[in-house]
């Protein structure tokens, strides 16, 4: 194939498939070293080493969850305080108002529930899921990514992306195959 018709196809990126997790990790390291930023890897299970290989920043979702927890706690206690002291104070078994130890359990539950919901919610946001159509699925063998395939993808929007150069670069990492993925 020659230069001009290649550029005419809208590209998502170049996808290289590897034989094993180890090779994928190694390849990912080199790719990052080579200065490619907008890259991604696909493996049938989470691999810690991939994160620094692609130098992915640590996820910030826990911070969101922490905020959620704090908000939940205040909501929980606040609601109970309002109900028992402000909205309709009642003499329950001659207990003080508020009898705060009794309000702790519900506060705890609120805290945890809020944190977890925030976590799940932000996970959807950062991963931009649900997304049932995605260019990577155009790759004929991509179905193995969820079974025993290991893929490395360099995105076309990467500054240093150049079809020919990048393809050669990937081939040098001796993958099973390198393939262009259309948008």
């Amino acid at each position, binding site marked *: 194939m020659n230069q001009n018709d290649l550029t005419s196809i809208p590209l998502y990126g170049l996808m290289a498939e590897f034989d094993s997790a180890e090779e994928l990790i190694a390849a990912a390291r080199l790719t990052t070293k080579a200065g490619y930023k907008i890259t991604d890897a696909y493996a049938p299970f989470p691999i810690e080493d991939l994160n620094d290989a692609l130098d992915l920043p640590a996820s910030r979702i826990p911070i969101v969850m922490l905020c959620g927890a704090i908000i939940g706690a205040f909501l929980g206690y606040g609601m109970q305080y309002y109900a028992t002291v402000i909205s309709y104070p009642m003499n329950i078994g001659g207990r003080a108002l508020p009898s705060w130890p009794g309000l702790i359990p519900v506060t705890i539950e609120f805290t945890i529930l809020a944190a977890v919901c925030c976590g799940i919610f932000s996970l959807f946001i950062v991963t931009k899921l*649900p*997304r*049932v*159509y995605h260019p990577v*699925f*155009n790759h*004929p063998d*991509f179905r193995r990514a969820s079974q025993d395939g290991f893929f490395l993808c360099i995105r076309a929007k990467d500054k240093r992306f150049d079809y020919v150069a990048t393809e050669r670069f990937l081939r040098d990492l001796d993958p099973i195959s390198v393939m262009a993925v259309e948008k």
Partner: protein
Amino acid sequence: MQGGDPPPESPQVFRPRANRFYMAFVVSIPIALLIGGFSCYEVYRSPVWTDVSMPVAQPVLFSHRHHAGELQIDCRYCHTSATTSSFAGIPPTETCITCHSQILKQSPLLKPVLVSYNTNRPIKWNRVHDLPDYVYFDHSIHVNKGVGCATCHGAVNEMPLVWKTQTLFMEWCLQCHRNPAPNLRPVAQIFAMDWKPPNDQATQGPRLARDYHLDTKHLTNCTVCHR
């Protein structure tokens, strides 16, 4: 889930637009819940459920506007026990006859009344203000402690057929039991249909509350209305 088939040779499961459908679906769930909840909340408080301002048909076309409004007949003339008993009292047929043995004897509107009087069969009125049976409301104490008829029953003197002007929800009872002052009237004004809170109600209300020995702390006890 829509999205249509991708071209047969493609390994894709869905077409691109499927993503938009999916996202729309996901987002719509919480929105639907919010709208549903809110509308329940609103409907329950709306006349659809509470019958507020919905005139109630009666076996006799009796017009409060005419009797209480135009003729200026005092509430107590018919609702005799309002000041002395828990139950305000519905006038016996006799009461109607006292006047109507002279006036409008022949009017067809009056027929059911005469029939009742002659056959000794009572008239079955339809309740307008019907509290649940586990709520014990006492007219006498309210009327004697500065709560006017119109405060709860509205301007009956302008109603041809009577309707509810208040929801009679517990929260409605409570707002007055918690802070009666704005609604309190001097004894003389209790049966006045046209009473409006004077400009100095802010000062007069609390004063009346004191004079009537109202103890709001006690008024919010469950035992005041429920037994």
